[in-house]
């Protein structure tokens, strides 16, 4: 019987939050279409963690374990997943729009000869067909897309389909995978550690972002302190101006040539709000702007703003947030 395919990404043996979101999105579609959710998890030493996907609505969780899958392999994962989708004749295939998902999903789509859309922020069933909504042109337009045949492949943006826990526990099955690392043309040698522990700006629920208004790289400590005040829930973001100046790594850049983010709360401090910056953060649920220039364009998109010197405002905010969450 067909079903909704959900790819669940793991890291260090743990199911990532975006994977819970993908399964949640799949559950909604499955209910609308009257079918099941089939989640697939690939890796090594992940069987225990995989079972939790039932809680988010997977009817069946298929676990494919291989030593070669200790790290991500585009070729290996593509082979296993596309055969799975072909064999099960899935109606729709969902992936997280993470760095891994966006590397893998288009390859799977090409192998299947299926259409693909990325960074989906809405999924609905219209007349039996699944219609996805996605931003284009840096969020200046929204596009509704539908598949013209085969199993459509979509990657869903983080923080949009918030995980919903479901009392139903899914069953766990073993997926036979026989892969050999020697066959792969590309092998992940290393994941640069340390940084991997940090909450990523692409996935954080709260982002405190700083721009040229910070004045110096040292002063970015004000942004880091405020992010830290949220107790592990906030990531640091940056405008391109400060990344180009070498104050912050590109990984933190939000915008057209940086990351696209959809947090619940985006605090922009000392950022003017150039169109290319808005391209990355305009889908944040709430935007707070802190800027000394009352005419700064960021105020045109911000829900709340404070006009003034960030050198005074940010430390006070960090203090008050700490007090409030204590």
């Amino acid at each position, binding site marked *: 019987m067909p079903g909704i395919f959900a790819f669940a990404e793991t890291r260090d043996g743990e199911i990532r939050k975006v994977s819970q979101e993908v399964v949640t999105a799949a559950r909604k579609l499955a209910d609308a279409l009257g079918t099941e959710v089939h989640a697939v998890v690939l890796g090594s030493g992940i069987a225990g963690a995989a079972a939790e996907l039932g809680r988010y609505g997977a009817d069946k969780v298929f676990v494919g374990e291989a030593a070669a899958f200790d790290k991500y392999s585009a*070729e290996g994962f593509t082979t296993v997943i596309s055969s799975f989708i072909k064999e099960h004749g899935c109606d729709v295939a969902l992936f997280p729009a993470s*760095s891994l998902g*966006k*590397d893998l999903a*288009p*390859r799977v*789509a*090409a192998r299947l*000869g*299926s*259409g*693909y859309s*990325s960074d989906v922020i809405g999924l609905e069933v219209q007349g039996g067909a699944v219609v996805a909504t996605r931003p*284009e*042109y*840096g969020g200046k*337009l929204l*596009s*509704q*897309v*539908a*598949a*013209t*045949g085969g199993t459509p492949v979509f990657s869903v943006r983080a923080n949009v389909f918030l995980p919903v826990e479901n009392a139903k526990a899914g069953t766990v099955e073993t997926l036979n995978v026989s892969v050999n690392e020697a066959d*792969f*043309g590309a092998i*992940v*040698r290393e*994941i640069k550690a340390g*940084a*991997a522990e940090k*909450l990523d700006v692409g*996935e954080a629920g*709260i982002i405190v972002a700083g721009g040229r208004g910070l004045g110096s790289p040292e002063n970015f400590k004000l942004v880091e302190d405020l992010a830290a005040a949220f107790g592990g829930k906030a990531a640091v973001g940056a405008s391109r101006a400060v*990344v180009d100046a070498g104050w912050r790594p*590109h*990984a933190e*850049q939000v915008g*057209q*040539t940086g990351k696209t983010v959809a947090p619940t*709360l985006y605090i922009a401090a000392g950022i003017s709000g150039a*169109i*290319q910056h808005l391209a990355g953060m*305009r*889908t944040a*649920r*709430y935007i*707070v702007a802190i800027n000394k220039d009352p005419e700064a364009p960021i105020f045109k998109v911000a*829900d*709340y*703003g*404070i*006009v*003034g010197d960030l050198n*005074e*405002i940010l*430390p006070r*905010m960090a203090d*008050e947030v700490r007090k*409030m969450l204590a």
Partner: protein
Amino acid sequence: MKSIVCVKRVPDTEARLRIAGDEKSVEAAGVKFVLNPYDEFAVEAALKHKEAAGSGEVTAISVGGAESAETLRTALAMGADNAVLLKTAGRAEGLAVARVLAEEIKGREYDLLLFGMKAIDDDLQAVGPMTAELLGIPAASAVTEFSVADGRVTAHREIEGGHEVVELRMPCALTMTKGAYEPRYASLKGIMAAKKKPLEEKAATAGDAGVETRKLSYPSERQAGRIVGQGADAVPALLKLLREEAKVL
């Protein structure tokens, strides 16, 4: 070393866009077009590695209408050696573009196939991995920097909260993001030289991409909110609003 760089003509980032009457496409009139910014990183990377190797060739390829010749000239002016326009009628994207590219590239000799990580018009981030898949070659996406030695590429790929070091057998495909390759400006000399460089045009047919746009719309405009106050004294009021009105804290 031979590199092929795939490039796309896209509306400038500042462009104001209007949805056309068919509700499925964007009006091109009055819009300034540029070489996709991510593709600039790819062109720059190809040129840098050719320069480091001391020999080689950089070929720029684009799928698109006749206007895309202009985009290829930009790549030639930056320093690419030759260019190919695979001329299609109408807009093509995703799998359709990958198929046209793969068909052209499979007959060519190359070590590196480079793309921008995504095009800033459709924001799809798919043509690179799809083309690699159709060609059956290894690939890595969101690459900030890479080195080449002994028939292998070592690429740094951005992932959440860090990066991955991937080793790839050549030929391979990489999709480039911002990182080690700051795009050079085309010099006047480069622009003049580009006029004499070979730019081949071939007719191509882009088939079904497997997805269709049913409707384009404008996102609901974000309303300018409220200035809560001036200076640090406004902080408690802001947090109160975030907690009680927005309910995000």
